Structure formats: C-alpha cells, structure tokens
C-alpha cells in the first residue's frame, strides 16, 4: 500500500449527469463524494403520502427513529417536516405513531 497522498475530488458536480458522455464519468462508475445519495430524489416512487397532525403530535419522535429513509426532519428536538424528496411512503411512521398523529393518504388525493 502506497503512503502517497491520493488526490481526488472533494465536491462532485453532477449537473446534467444524465447526458454526460462516457469520458466524463469517473473510472469504474465510482462516486467520488461521500453522502451524495441525498442528491438522488427517490420520493417519486411513493404512492401513499404521510401527513402530520400538529394537534395530536407529542414529539416523542418514535417516527424519526423508525423511518428507514431518514425522511423525518427534526428541529430543536421537535418534529419539523417530512422529506418528501426521499420518503417512499412505506407507512412505518404512521404505524408506529402512538397518538395517530400521522396518517397515510393516497398521492394525488386530498391534502
């Protein structure tokens, strides 16, 4: 193993990546930036959307613990919002909520 310092990109600009030519992609399809999966918006897969009722919520944050996609945002230790760019609508949050503050509604239906 070489001790030589390896030089790589720090911030990977993926603007227009869908149309990049073969020369522009990193060797072997590597992703030269940690944590950029957040840039990949997968919320479009969702067919049911969770909605939140402020009146019923006790900020126990059990939903935040259980969300498999880190799609529940918390601010100052309080429930803040859903990250609809990444929420797949699995309904786990609604299922675990002890006060029924989260319910699932069909996408495209009533807000």
């Amino acid at each position: 193993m070489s001790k030589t310092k390896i030089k790589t990109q720090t911030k990977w600009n993926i603007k227009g990546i869908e149309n990049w030519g073969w020369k522009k992609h990193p060797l072997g399809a590597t992703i030269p930036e940690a944590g950029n999966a957040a840039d990949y918006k997968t919320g479009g897969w969702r067919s049911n959307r969770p909605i939140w009722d402020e009146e019923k919520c006790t900020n126990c944050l059990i939903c935040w613990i259980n969300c498999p996609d880190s799609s529940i945002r918390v601010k100052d230790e309080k429930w803040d919002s859903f990250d609809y760019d990444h929420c797949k609508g699995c309904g786990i949050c609604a299922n675990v909520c002890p006060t029924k503050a989260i319910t699932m509604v069909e996408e495209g239906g009533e807000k």
Partner: protein
Amino acid sequence: MATTANKATTKQTTVAMTGNAGCALAMKQINPDVVGAYPITPQTTIVEEFANYVANGVVDTEYINVESEHSAMSACIGASAAGARVMTTTSSQGLALMWEELSIASAMRLPIVMHNVNRSLSGPINIHCDHSDSMGARDMGWVQMFGETAQEAYDNTIIAMRVAEHEKVMLPVMIMHDGFITSHAIDRFDVLDDEVVKKFVGEYVPKRALLDTDNPMTFGPFAMPPYYYEQRKAMRVALENAKDVVLKVSKEYGKLSGRTYGLFEEYRLDDAHIAVIVLGSTAGTAKYVVDKLRDKGMKVGLLKPRLFRPFPSAEMADALSHLKAVAVMDRSDSIGAPGGPVYMEVKAALYNTTKRPHVQGYVYGLGGRDTGPDQIETVFGDLQKVARGEEAPREAVTLLGVKE
C-alpha cells in the same frame, strides 16, 4: 510483431523449474499486497509455492485463504478497490465459479492479475489441458494473454502487472499457460533478479482507494439505464488501449531481458504460402513440424497468438494477407457456433479485407488429448490441397483426432 531475441541489458539466472514454479517466482518478485486464492488442479502448485514464500516471510503479501474461487475473486476485488496490488490464480471450474465476479472486477476497473492455468471444463470431469475455461471468459472485459512455454508464463506475469495498472488500461489481466504441459513440466528458462523486477513493476499508487479515508468514495454503485452503457463503452476503449500498452511494456521488458514479445509471434511466416494459427504449448510442436516441412521444401509457417483480448484483428489480417490458405487450430470448441473461438476471430478479422487467405478450422486436443506432429502435418496436407486450388478436403470445422 514477432518475438525477437536481442541482447539483455541485465544479469539473468538460468533456472530449471516448472511453469507454475516460474509463475510463483514472478509473483514473489512482484511482491503483491494481497493474494486471495483457492487451489485447483493444475494451478495448485502456484498457490502452494507462493504460500511457502509467504510462510517463509520473503514477501509482504497478505495471503487470504478463502473457501472457494467465488470468494477468492471477491476478496481480490475488495482488496483492489481498497488500493492494494492484487494477484490470484485459478483453473477451469475455479474460473467458472468466479464467473459473476470476473465482469465486476473489469467493470470496477481493478488491475488484478490472475493466472488461469488452462484446463478443460467439466463435464465429463477432466483435469487436463484445453482452453475452454479461459475462452468462456473472453467477453468479461479482461485482457487475455497466452503463453507457450514456462519462460513466457514467467515473463507474461511480470508484463501483465504493468499492463493492468497502466492508466490507459486499468483492467484486470488473465494470463494463460497450458495445464500440465507447461504448468508441470520442468523447463529451462531465464529469470531476472528480484531487484530488477521490483524496479520494473514499480510501486503501485492507486488513483482511487477505499482505504483513502480522507477522500471517501463509493465503489460498485448501481447504474441505471442512463449510466450503464457509457461505462461499457469506457471498458471497450480501455481494452483496445491494452494493445498498444502490451507492446510498449513488452518492448521495455525486452530491453531488460532480451526477450521482446509482440501481439503474436510469426514463425517462418514471411515467405510462407500456407500457415497454421495455434496458441499455447501446441505452437511448440507446430514449429517442429514447420521446420520439418521446410526441410522438404514446403513454404509453411506459423502464427502464434499471444494477446487474445483485445484481439489484434487488423495486425493479424495484415500478417496473413500474403497467404493462400490458413488453418486455425482451437483447443476449445464453441459448441453450436461455426467453429472454435480463435477460428471465428480470425475469419472475422479477414472478412472485410480484399486480400485474404482461405481459412480452415480445426478443433484439437480437448480434455488433454495429445496433439502430435502427425496431426499438424495432416493439417498442412489439407492446406496444401486448398492452396493448389482443390476443393477444401474437410468440413468448415474438423474435430481433429476424435475417434469416429
């Protein structure tokens, strides 16, 4: 293009060793960071000898004992992605078990070097030589180089490391020699000093590595339809680049050793009217037959492919253009196809050229069946008839030496 002997610029030692021992010695001299390997006949003595080097502390290699070849290649992929210089070896069913990892290694652009000591594929189960194992892996994005002798097996190992790690290639390299014939027979050949090899292969400095924690990156991500195709194009270009890189590295190696290899070897081909194309150890027997027939005044020659992937189509078409008839001898059958793999490549290489010889295909020596000079003389006899303008005496592809 031909193999040439020039004056070596460095001291060498003449040894008496098996081809496999020569490969293990080359591995010792390269001193890779990681070897993940599983023993299988006829490759076993390479890993045995290399394990000795590890146990005796003469190499710094992390030797990973794995439970299968599937795991061997997986370990190699992980280690190579981590930034290590990685080598392994296998044969036959072992290569078959590595199948899904082979194309992952090439697609991830990992410069792993692997010996595949040629052995027939089951079934029926058989441990002896043919090329069906490595020919089955010909579309996996690996560079493939065949050697005839223990000397070539040794030399190719060292050259392969530089080819794999070349920035224009960055692909795994598979090097072949014939099971038992080359792997287990003791041969006389010349080896370089450890220090010379160490300098020749140099230090591997990966441009991307999982162990570089200051620059975290993801290897082997999912690629949806907008991205997959471009990666495959990049692999095709890199594999094509390997042709020039093999020549360049072989030339540099030739300066050291006095042995310069081309993409293929031409033996008494210049003024020949008919020729045989055969790779691996049978090329040695064919050279004997060429000499014998030349003594009788026949204008015969030989072309021995060295690089099979990338296939040097244009160069080979050029080298064959002056011939009247050519026989391609394949030590593997592509069942259901018009002929063996080398036959099909040669024919395809010639099709769009204006000046081209008649091509006759032969399959020989499956499962280690001996191929003696008499069989090769039969082939030249057939070619002579074709060259005289007679109708080809056999079918498009003949299974030579099979009992009817």
